[in-house]
C-alpha cells in the first residue's frame, strides 16, 4: 500500500492548528513515516499539486479564497477541516456581527477603499465546499489529530465525540465552573479536548462547536438558576459560535 499524500493549507486564521502538528515533536517523525507530506507552506519549501488528503486550516473571508478552496477540494480525495476557523468559522465569525463596511473603515480608516483590503462575510469551509471530516477545536488537539490521521491511513472513519465537555470534565474530577458562578459552555459543547479549559480553572467557551442537539431551553433555565441571564450565555456563545448564538436569538 503506497503512503497517502497529504498537503496542508491555510486560510484566514492564526496558523495555530498547523503549529499543533509541529508541536507533535518526536511524533512528527512517525507522522511522516505514515504519510507523505507533499506540501506545507509553513514548514516546508516543497510544493506539489498531487495529493490524496488535504488538511485545511482557516476560514474563508474573500472571493479569491473561495476559488482557492474549491481548487483544493477538486484535487483532494479527502478534505479535512482543521480547527475552529475551518470547522465553524471560529472567532473570525465575530466579524459577521458587524456591517463589513464599518469593519473595514474601523481598521483602515480613509484607506478602507483600497481594493486589496476588501473582505466578505466569514464562512466555515463546509459553507463553500464539501468537507469529509472535521477536527474541531481552537487549536486542534494533537492527540485527536493523530487519531484522525491514523484512521484515514487505514481507511477508518474517525469518530469525533458527540457528547459534551462535561463528560471529560467529570472524568478529570473538576469542580463544575457553575459552582464558581461562571458561565461555562461545557454542557452544550462537543467534547474531545479532555476538558482542557475547565481543568485549568477556566470556563469552556465553546471552541469545539456545539453538540448535535444542544438543549437551549435547559441553558436558559440553568442561567436563571445561577443568577445569570440568557444574554450572558449568548454573549459567551458568540465568541466561537456566532451563527449558533444568532440561530437561537
Amino acid at each position, binding site marked *: 500500500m503506497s503512503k497517502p499524500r497529504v498537503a496542508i493549507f491555510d486560510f484566514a486564521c492564526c496558523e495555530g492548528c498547523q503549529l499543533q502538528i509541529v508541536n507533535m515533536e518526536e*511524533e512528527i517523525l*512517525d*507522522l511522516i*513515516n*505514515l504519510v507523505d507530506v507533499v506540501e506545507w507552506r509553513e514548514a516546508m519549501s516543497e510544493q506539489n499539486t498531487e495529493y490524496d488528503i488535504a488538511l485545511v486550516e482557516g476560514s474563508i473571508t474573500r472571493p479569491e479564497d473561495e476559488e482557492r478552496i474549491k481548487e483544493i477540494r477538486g484535487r483532494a480525495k479527502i478534505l479535512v477541516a482543521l480547527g475552529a476557523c475551518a470547522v465553524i468559522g471560529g472567532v473570525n465569525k465575530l466579524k459577521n456581527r458587524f456591517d463589513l463596511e464599518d469593519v473595514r473603515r474601523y481598521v483602515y480608516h480613509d484607506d478602507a477603499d483600497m481594493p486589496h483590503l476588501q473582505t466578505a462575510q466569514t464562512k466555515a469551509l463546509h459553507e463553500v465546499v464539501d468537507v469529509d471530516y472535521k477536527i474541531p477545536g481552537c487549536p486542534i488537539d494533537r492527540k485527536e489529530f*493523530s*487519531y484522525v490521521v*491514523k*484512521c484515514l*491511513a*487505514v481507511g477508518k472513519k474517525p469518530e469525533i465525540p*458527540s*457528547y*459534551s465537555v*462535561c*463528560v471529560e470534565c*467529570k*472524568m478529570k*474530577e*473538576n*469542580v*463544575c465552573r*457553575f459552582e464558581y458562578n461562571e458561565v461555562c459552555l*461545557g*454542557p*452544550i459543547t462537543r467534547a474531545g479536548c479532555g476538558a482542557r479549559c475547565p481543568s485549568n480553572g477556566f470556563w469552556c467557551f465553546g471552541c469545539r462547536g456545539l*453538540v*448535535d*442537539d*444542544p*438543549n437551549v*431551553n*435547559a*441553558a436558559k*433555565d*440553568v442561567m436563571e*438558576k445561577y443568577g445569570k441571564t440568557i444574554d450572558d450565555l449568548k454573549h459567551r456563545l458568540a465568541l466561537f459560535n456566532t451563527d449558533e448564538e444568532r440561530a437561537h436569538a
Partner: protein
Amino acid sequence: MSIKKLDQAALDRWVDGLIERKKVVGAAQRGDHFSFGELTSASELRLDYDMSILPPKKYFLPPTEDLISFRRDGGFESIFEEDPMVLLGVHPYDMFAISQLDTLFSEDNDDIHYRKRREAITIVASDVQTASEDVFAGCMGTATIDHGFDILLTKIGDQYLVDIRTEKGQAITMGFGEMPDATDDDLDQRERLWAENQKVLRKHELRPAVGYLPKLLGESYDHPIWEEKAELCFSCGSCNLVCPTCYCFDVQDELNWDVTSGHRYRIWDGCMLANFAIVAGDHNFRAAKSERFRHRYFRKGKYIPEKIGQTGCVGCGRCVSACVAKIANPVEIYNRIAEGKE
C-alpha cells in the same frame, strides 16, 4: 476478626508507615474540593471529608482502561493493569456500591480485568464524620455497612475503632503497635453513631420505602415527570459519570503509529448521552431525552434491584450536586411518582 482502638497520632503513624511500604490512596483536599488520590503523608488524609467528586470506583473501573493489545495481522493479548494499593476512607455508601460492582462484574461472565484490580486493592472503609450537602444514604439503607471492606474505621470521640474483617485487612495492620481491644462500651457508642448516621445522612427524604421502588416504577413508565425533567436535561452525562454504581462503558481501538499494532480500551460511557443506544446505520433506540432520563431512574430503582436484589442507587447525592440543570435528584423523582400512591 478483631476490633481495636487507635488514637489520631497512632493512626497517623500507621498511615505514614503504610505509605512507606505501599501505594496509599485516600480522601484529601485538592484545591477547593475533596477527592481520592495518592497520599504522600498521613497529614493529607481527611477522614472528615464530606464527599469526593468522583467515587472510589475510579480505582476499580478507571475512566479509561486498556483491555487487550492487538496486531493487525492477527493476534490478541490481554492487558492487565492491576494497581495494588490501600484505599483509605471509603464511606459506607461507596463501599456498598463497590460490592455491587463486584457482583455485577463477576456474575454471568466474570470480568477478570475488574477482578484483578479489585483483588489488588485493600479497602479501609470509614464511617461518615461529615454529612455532605446532598447525601441521602440514610434513606437507601447505605448509611452504614457491615461487609465488603477489609477494615472499617469509626471515629468515637478522639479515638478510632479499627474493625479488622479480613486477612487482607490483617495484613496491613503491621505497624499498629500495641493496640487495646475495643470495649463493649466502645461498641455501644459505635452502634449509637450508626443509628445517628442513619438519621443524619438524609439531606433529602425519600418517602416510599426503597424496596417499594421497583413496583412503583413499574407503574410509572408513562409518568409525566420523565418528559418534564428531560425538558431541561443537557444529556451531558454528569449524573452517570459521578455515580458510584454506573458502570456502562464504550470500547475503542487505538492504533500505534505503525498502524499495524495497538490496543483496545474501554472508556466510561453513560446512558444519558445522546448516542448511547445508537446502532450501525444510525438508528437510535433511545433517541428521546425523556427515554434516556427514564432509563437511568429505572435502572437504579428497578432493573438493578430486580437483577441482584439491591438498590442501584446508594444515596451518595453526587448526581444531585453534579447536575447543572438541577433535575437529577433521585429522591425528588421517586417521591413525585409515589405521590397519590399508598
